[in-house]
């Protein structure tokens, strides 16, 4: 895929009268810019899900893909740690029940995704400031961002040094260094992700309103976007 493809994805979303990209679409755009994403495939039905799960290898994660459902987790639209075909079948049935709760939800399918273990969850985001244009945000995921608002911001374009500063600026930084026997995160991979997001934000400045990669898994070697959400202007 190339940068033109991102425009195509966005165009198609707009044609459908949408402003919100699904996880699958969002991550396609990320991968065009070289931000690594989880190995994943969009399955149309149960049989395809089983096939993809075998290709990817258990354990897998199953996620509902629908432009009408932005808070998947809250609705029970994410099933993690699926270890066998039997568990997959159960999870699939569960996911399909969401239709009862969200009437007329347009379901694109089910995303079968590799299950990453051993990593720190970070969040990488972008919002548009009326004065300064795109602003990049970095923080540790979960409660750190939600309760403590322990995040750092910078305005792109960013240098490697900027990206490194952003990472080190947060209070929870020692966790990324592997505090208390935790995982030591791959600093270069994180810096690369920030720089690529910076490039993406500037290229698509006219199109994007805000976006999140949450979580971005920062592993000992490499990083991968596990979930992402892009909102158009």
């Amino acid at each position, binding site marked *: 895929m190339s940068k033109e493809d991102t425009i195509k994805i966005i165009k198609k979303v707009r044609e459908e009268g949408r402003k919100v990209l699904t996880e699958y679409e969002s991550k396609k755009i990320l991968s065009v810019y070289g931000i690594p994403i989880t190995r994943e495939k969009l399955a149309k039905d149960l049989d395809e899900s089983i096939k993809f799960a075998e290709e990817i290898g258990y354990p897998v994660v199953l996620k509902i893909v629908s432009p009408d459902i932005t808070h998947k987790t*809250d609705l029970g639209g994410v099933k993690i740690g699926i270890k066998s075909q039997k568990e997959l079948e159960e999870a699939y049935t569960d996911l399909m029940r969401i239709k009862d709760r969200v009437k007329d939800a347009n379901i694109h399918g089910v995303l079968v995704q590799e299950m990453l273990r051993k990593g720190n969850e970070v969040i990488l985001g972008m919002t548009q400031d009326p004065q300064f244009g795109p602003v990049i945000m970095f923080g540790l995921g979960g*409660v750190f961002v939600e309760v403590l608002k*322990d995040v750092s911001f910078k305005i792109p374009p960013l240098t490697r040094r900027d990206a490194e500063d952003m990472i080190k600026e947060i*209070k*929870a930084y020692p966790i990324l260094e592997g505090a*208390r*026997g935790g995982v030591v995160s791959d600093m270069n991979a994180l810096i690369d992700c920030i720089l690529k997001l910076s490039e993406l934000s500037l290229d698509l400045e006219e199109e994007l309103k805000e976006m999140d990669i949450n979580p971005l898994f920062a592993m000992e070697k490499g990083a991968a976007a596990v979930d992402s959400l892009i909102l158009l202007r």
Partner: protein
Amino acid sequence: MLDKFFYPKSITVIGASNKPYKVGKIIIDNLTMSYPGKIYPVNPNEDEINDLKAYKTVLDIPDTVDLAIIVIPNIAVPKIIEECGKKGVKFCIIISSGFKETGVEGAKLEREIAEIAKKYRIRLLGPNCFGVINTDNNLNTTFSPIMPIVGNIAVFSQSGALCSTLLDWAYKERIGFSKFISLGNKVDLNENDFLEYFVNDKQTNIVLGYLEGITDGETFIKEAKRLTKNKALVLIKSGSTSAGARAASSHTGTLAGTEEAYTTAFKKCGAIRAKSIDDWLDIARVFSNQPLPKGDKIAIITNAGGPGIIAADSCEELGISLSDLSSTTIEKLRKKLPSSASIYNPIDVLGDADPSRYSFTLKTVLNDDNVYGCIVILTPQAMSRPFETAREIIKVSETINKPILACFMGGILVESGIKYLEENGVPNYLDPKKATISMASLIKQYYNTLRKEENPIVFEDINKEQVKEILSKNDALSLDFIDCMKILEAYNIPIAKYGISKTADGCIKIANNINYPVALKIVSSDISHKTELGGVRLNVKNDEEVVAVYNEIMTCVKKYNPNAVVNGICVQEMIKTSDKKEVIIGVNKDPQFGHLIMFGMGGIYVEILKDVSFRLSPLTRSDAYDMIHEIKMYPLLRGVRGEKPVDIDKIANVLMRVSSLVSDFKNIVEMDINPLICLEDSCKVVDARITIKR
């Protein structure tokens, strides 16, 4: 007790001199100039000093002596104190230096004079001090060339240089003092004696203090609390940051340094802490001139947008609310002010505001019941008449009993207005932020006056004897896991079920009694951070896993420290459920203030984010709840993203029980409950460490 100290009938100056520029000369000059009581100079080489008969020794004075001022070389001081004792002198002020501040020899000399004084029941001020001033009876025992004007501010300071600075500043600013004390080395009389005195001193309404250390923390809190109920106590405390950086083995030890202890103590007793000399003086001035607001809501009146916003921002930072004006007030303002004026707080009376517009607005706003005080900002504009506006402000201030702080900003153009304001008791600030800091201090003191005494909870369902027994049979300073758990149980603090065994079979038996899954932990007083070296394994699910994990732990430990004494492996109940939260409760004994109790979220939050709160023991019920609410992670305990909340009452109960335990056993110097696992309807201690001092 200090009546004769501040109001002596007769004074002697030992070391009084006729030689110009000598301290003994300046002091006798100061005294003879204004002090109306009897003065007896002592100097073996003079017959007469300042027209007064000089005596060879204090014993030769044909009268009783209440107060002796000693200005002689350090080495001669012990002999002089001895003579004062024989003479029956009640108080001595030792101006002379060359004591503790100079080193070991000086410290020895200082101890010597303290002992002599004690023998004769003489109370000492100093040594190495600047003296005392009482404006009520014109007593000035200092070598300051300035006699302050009469006022309601009392000062004690551990720095003599700050005393002379403050006297000079106050004289220029026309700020008056009641009593002025230079504490010096505090060999006997210290801040606590003076706090106690100021509680009932009719001349004093505000107490300023500069402290480098506190002599007795417990008394300090008691006396300061009594004082702040009616009078403001504004303190500068310096030199407490690096002292706190001592090596400690527990989390609480590293986090609960001296600085935290002071901060917590000041909070507890209602002292206002000034962050700089500038703040100290600003706050002193506002208390000496302005009444207390009766609440935390104020109005801001300004003739320019910018400074108004700066003041509003600073109010928010300091926890001051901007009053919602009543509809009557708004209606009145709307009628009189130009249509483009902003009539919502901050009230912008516009750049062309003249004195009468200021006066009308200030009066209207202060008459609103939702407004407890006002900051009036004036920037010099073409139509501003700062002097006349100042006059109007003073007129209003004389009729309404609410604090008014002015913020006339600029230089030459506002100078005359500022001078008029300050001469008439309305303090002016060139920076709106400073005005808000002063206002916040007034508000804080108002809430001090409302403070109700709350007693710590006394628990009946505790077993003191059991703890006493465990502590007395212990040789180690750091108690082992079992003793820690037994102590907690004795105070009815809930703990996770556990058992200890030295064999894998024994562990299996315990695990089956508790029910799987269980956690396995090494028990050894030689190993303090169990987790990092693999001494803790969670979620052990069956007999086979117990055996495997048992062996792994033993291997890890041997590798880490082959000489570690292993008391066994603890098999402990695993608290299952995803909605559990880990918190930490710690205790560290501060040398000044006693047990400092710490609360925070466990694990990574306490270690990396240092998100903890402190209170001094004994905890009241409100202390316990406030500590829990204060941490940034509090929302996590209330449940975020659909998680269930944990039982806050149960946590507060554990905090109060811990406080009760350490109050009963003062030899506990450090304690960590880490973690306390909290659930929706209960909480349980999973691990604890206690360190005692013989």
